[in-house]
């Protein structure tokens, strides 16, 4: 162990806390999302059908929260796994964190873009 290596890693509480907050958001939103998409409307997934459903603004909001929280939760989870195995140096950990943030924001933008046809339907 290198004492400096331990000392170099400050913080982590916010990442941990947001992981929990997003987890709770995900459970709630995912339950709504799955119920409406797969239990109540199974077999009818189609462009117009989705558009009808998302006409209820609430469900659009749920999907967007799901998207944002899901991306954060997924990528932070991935970061956790990486930290466990090979992100021992602070520089590397920082670089990966920044990279994952960039990927996350890109996916968020791309995801909203994907939802856009229905939002503006």
């Amino acid at each position, binding site marked *: *162990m*290198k*004492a400096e*290596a*331990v*000392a170099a*890693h*400050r*913080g*982590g*509480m916010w*990442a*941990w*806390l947001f992981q929990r907050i997003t987890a709770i958001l995900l459970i709630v939103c995912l339950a709504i999302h799955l119920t409406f998409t797969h239990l109540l409307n199974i077999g009818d997934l189609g462009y117009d059908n989705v558009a009808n459903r998302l006409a209820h603004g609430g469900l659009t909001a749920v999907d967007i929260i799901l998207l944002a929280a899901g991306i954060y939760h997924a990528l932070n989870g991935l970061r*956790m796994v990486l*930290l*466990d*195995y090979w992100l*021992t140096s602070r520089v590397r*950990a920082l670089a990966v964190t920044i990279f994952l943030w960039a990927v996350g924001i890109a996916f968020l933008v791309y995801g909203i873009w994907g939802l856009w046809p229905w939002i503006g339907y």
Partner: protein
Amino acid sequence: MSDIKFRLKRQDPRDKENPEAHWEEYTVKYEGENLTVLEGLFYIQESLDPSLSFRYGCGQSICGSCAMYINGAYRLACQTNVKHLAADVITVAPMPHLPLIKDMIVDMDDFFAKYEQIKPWLIRNSPDPEKELIQSAKDAKKIEMPSDCILCGSCYSSCPSAWGEENYLGPAALLKAYRFEVDTRDEAGRERMPDWDNERGVYRCHTIMNCVEACPKELNPTEGIEWLKRAAVRRKVFRRAK
């Protein structure tokens, strides 16, 4: 009662002729009712193979020297009676996932370096009173569990987070941090916090609970680590003192 077989994992990495790990079997005399694994090892060392190395201390489960991997679990050799193992063969190996020195001896330097890292002492800023510091019986009870740690290293060796990440402080050190942070006499405030409120500290704990399974004193390091996580939130988000 008849004799009992001990299967020991032997390795001397500095032995030029045979540096590899290998298993050796010994037949240990087992006449009476009681035989602890440590007594068995002493029998082997005295009568069968003087080259066997293992740590020993008190022989009464308080010093923490003889934590080993016995029949698939972390156990204190002195505390383990072979009759409770209910096995024909007693398999003894050093604690896994730690650097090996010889036979049952593992290198605990990192373990203690991490222990030292979290400032394992009471930090006080106000002047000490003439008499004792007043602490309610209820508050004293809170530090009992973490104070009972004997630093045997079982939890540290069993923690998957520590296997992959050499800088993770590990359950024992974090339990020690909890022991002081939860103590009403401690006035560290934010002084000790950076050492455990850290990606190499409490947030590397994924509540796997192996440490709880492994602990021969039946302590619960996870409880302490989770308390620390909440304490971090209390302090940083809600600006509380403790």
